[in-house]
Every structure is written in C-alpha cells, then in structure tokens.
C-alpha cells in the first residue's frame, strides 16, 4: 500500500543556486501525481529531495520538512532507510551492466543482505510481472545481462528492480523520455496498473502523458510550485495564467 507525502516549506540549493523555493504540497496516497514544467524549473530536484538523493551531490542543500506517512524523512530516519521505502526510476535506464536480469532485480535485496533463495525467486518473478517484463525474459533470467535488453525493456527492468524492495512510493523522473513511443505506451500502462498499490510521482515533459496517467498534477516554474490541482482542472481550466501559458505552448 502506498502512503501520502506531505511537503512543507521545502527549499533546495545547488551551491548558491536556489533551485526550489518554498514548496508546499500534499501528494495523495495510491494515486499518480504528475509534475510538469519547463526545463530547469526544479521538478527533478524536487523528486530527488523526496528520496534524499539531492544531498548526495556535494553542493546540494535542503531545508524544510517532508513527511512520508507520518515519518519526517529528514530528521527521523537515515537516507539509506528512506531510499528503501521510496523507489526511483531514472530518465535513462541504468541497469547494472555486470549483472544478469535476475541479479539486477534482486540487487536491492541482495545488497542489503537478503539471502533467502526461495523468497528472492518469488520477488523477482513478481516484480518482473508487475513491470510487464516477465513474459519476455522469463527464460533468460540468469543468462542475459541487464544491459543486453532494448531500451524499453531496460527501463521496465529498472522499474522491476525498484519494485522488488517493496517500496511505498515510486518516483519516476521522466521515465519514458528516452524511449520510443511503443515502449512509452507500455510504461504508461504500467503506471496505470501500479497506481493501486503504490503512490506514484512522475516528472514529465510530456503534458499528454501527465493528462493520461495522473489524477493530480503540479506545475513548477522557476523553482516554485505555481499550481497543484486535479489533472482535469489543470488541463481544462487552470487557475493561474502562467499555467495556462505553459499548457498552451507559449513557452517551454
């Protein structure tokens, strides 16, 4: 089951660059929330704050509070613990090149010390099925390396890998932007299926994609959250003029 995310007064910096300013929003559980906005508006930085990846950058700094469920993720837990509860899928597929498909999916568990073979087999199968990849790879699980798959398959592999650690939230940073339209469609199908079990936050450049998969949408501009509302409202009757300008293609 997914949990909700509550963000208050979030500010983030890259060195002296004030990338996010006073972000406040509540992301509902078990829904897909899309974040849209022009390049450089801070939406990627925002999701990277949620799983505390932003601070892995030596010049990255964060202030404010983010609550996942009822846990204050910055003050009440370590980054490693947080990232085990919040999965991430990146823009470019990044399977581990030296590992087989099986090992890739199992990596999150194995590298944390999990060794029960039977459960690992189950988890790998279940995750690959959730990621709609099982049928395509089930015969080559241990023979093929993660990197030998096509782009779309690699991305689904990364999704399976993220799902294997049973997260409550799945963050997706433009997961389909490097993929062809057929793979993109498959990924969008996936998000539709996964919504019921996880809270999904998807950053996307593609407004149609946001419109297709998300219940709620947030529009970021220059580091600020301009508008956050139901997808339907954002795309039919946005409250803010800037949102309207972006949607109609005036910029970005």
């Amino acid at each position, binding site marked *: 089951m997914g949990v909700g995310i509550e963000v208050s007064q979030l500010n983030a910096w890259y060195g002296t660059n004030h990338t996010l300013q006073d972000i406040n929003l509540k992301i509902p559980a078990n829904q897909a929330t899309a974040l849209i906005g022009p390049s450089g508006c801070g939406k990627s930085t925002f999701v990277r704050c949620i799983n505390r990846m932003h601070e892995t950058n030596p010049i990255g700094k964060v202030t404010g509070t983010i609550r996942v469920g009822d846990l204050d993720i910055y003050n009440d837990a370590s980054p490693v613990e947080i990232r085990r509860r919040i999965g991430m899928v*990146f823009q*470019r597929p990044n399977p*581990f*090149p030296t590992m087989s498909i099986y090992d890739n999916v199992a990596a999150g568990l194995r*590298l944390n010390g999990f060794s029960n073979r039977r459960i690992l087999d189950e988890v790998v199968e279940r995750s690959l099925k959730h990621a709609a990849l099982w049928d395509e790879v089930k015969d080559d699980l241990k023979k093929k390396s993660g990197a030998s798959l096509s782009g779309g398959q690699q991305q689904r592999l990364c999704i399976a890998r993220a799902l294997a*650690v049973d997260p409550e939230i799945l963050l997706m940073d433009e997961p389909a932007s490097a993929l062809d339209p057929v793979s993109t469609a498959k990924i969008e199908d996936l998000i539709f299926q996964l919504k019921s079990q996880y809270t999904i936050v998807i950053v996307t450049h593609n407004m149609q994609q946001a419109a297709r998969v998300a219940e709620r949408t947030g529009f970021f501009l220059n580091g600020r959250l301009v508008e956050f509302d139901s997808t339907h409202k954002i795309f039919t009757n946005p409250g803010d003029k800037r949102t309207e300008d972006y949607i109609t293609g005036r910029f970005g």
Partner: protein
Amino acid sequence: MALAQKPSKANYLWRMFVNHAATTLAVVSTILVVAPLIAIFAYLVYKGASSLNLAFFTKTPAPVGETGGGMANAIVGSGILLALSSVLGVPIGIAAGIYLSEFGRGGRLANLVRFTADVLNGVPSIVMGIAIYSLIVLPQKHFSALSGGVALGIMMIPTITRTTEEMLLMVPNSIREAALGLGVPNWRSVLAITLKTASPGVITGCMLAFARVAGETAPLLFTAFGNQFWSANVNQPIAALPLQIYVYALSPYDEWHRLAWAGALVLIVLIVVSVALVRFVTTRGVLKGAN
C-alpha cells in the same frame, strides 16, 4: 614572420622546403627511435631464445664453470616477492583509488594525494630500497624477502592508486545513482557495484604495476639481496629474476651471460603481455553496456 610578408615565389619555395624538411626530420626521428627498440627486441629474442631451455625454468644455477643450470629459484623468488608486495600494495592502492574517485573527487586533499602519487612515481627505486633497508633490514640485522616485498609493495601503491582512480571515474554516475536509489549502503554500492563494474580495468591496472615491479632491481639490492639457492623463507634473502640478471650480466662467465639473456627474454615477454592486455582492456571498452 613568413605569413606577414608579401608572397613571393622565393618565399613560397622556402616555406615549402622548410615544410618538407620538417616532415623528413620527424620521420627520421621516428625511425631512429623505433630502430633501437626493434634492435633490442630482435637481439633479445635471438639471444634469449637460443639460451632458453627447460632447464632454465627448473634448475637452480650450476656451480661456476659448469654449464646447464637455470634460474628457477629466481623465478620462484620473484613470484614470492610479487605475492608479498601485492598483499601490501594492492589493497592500499585500490582503497586510495576508491577514496580519490568516490569520496574526495575534486577536493583539495584528493588533488594533493594525486599529485604526491605522481611525484612518488618518479622517485628513484634505489631510494625506496635504502629507506626499507633502514626501516627493516638494519633493525633485523639481515636481508629478507619480507623487506624486498615491502619495498616493492610501497612502489606499487602510487601506480595502483592512479589506475584504480582512473578506472573508477569511467563508471557512469547513473550506475551509482541506481544503487543509492535502491537504499543500498554507500560502502556496499562502492564495492559491489562501482568497483565490480570497473574491475576489468582495475585488475589490468594492478597487472601493469606488477609488471613494472617485477622488473625492478635496485630496491632489491639491499633488501632481498639475492640467493643462489632455493629459498621460500620470508625471513631470508631471496633470489629475484632481475637481480640475478644484473649479477650475471656483470660476471665474467659466458654461461652466466647466457642465463642473463634468457632471463631478460622472460622479463620482456611478461612486459609485452601486460602492456598489450592493458591496451586491449582500455581501448576495447571495459564497461559493456554501461554508456
């Protein structure tokens, strides 16, 4: 300056002449450089191959004046020294390389470490030998394979550090992020993912260090010291291939000269294989699929 003057036929001809002369000089230099190399190799192979026989690898040196005999003890001795030095040099070198790549990247300490490693690589190996002599041999009052191993190990560290760092830097950041994003502890991610991905390159970097160290004579002169007989005792003087070659080359006996040539060939083959392997690994692409 030639270009600023008004172009004239004479001026043009002169410039073309200079151009051709420069090309000729460059080609000549290349030939002059490649020639001794080929000469050395060819002569080595010729002399060494005719001297090389099975006995070389299986027998210890024969008494002076007798033929036959080999450098088996020196080969084994070099192997032991290499093993000892790797115990010291490989873990520390790889760890230092990990620090430079994964923790200190761009920082001032890392730059200083890197610079010092490069400078240390240029310190004459005989100086290392003296230092270890002073540190280990004098207090122990005897030469030993151990002191030789330490001297060679210390020489390995800067080389392995730099090659490890270089190889780790080639691992794309996306791989590291993938591991971190899964909630894998940093130390596990560095070892099981980053280092593992770069391992072909790291290993060949170690091989390069081994090859370099295997041919070193000077640091062993007063640490391992050399030994005419079989010895695998870490606390005793031990024979080493380059050391033996050195002693034999300077001796007045033809038989020992023959052994020196054979030993030199063995060393050269080792070097060529290592350099070729390193080239193969780094130019063919170490990181399959990770682009």
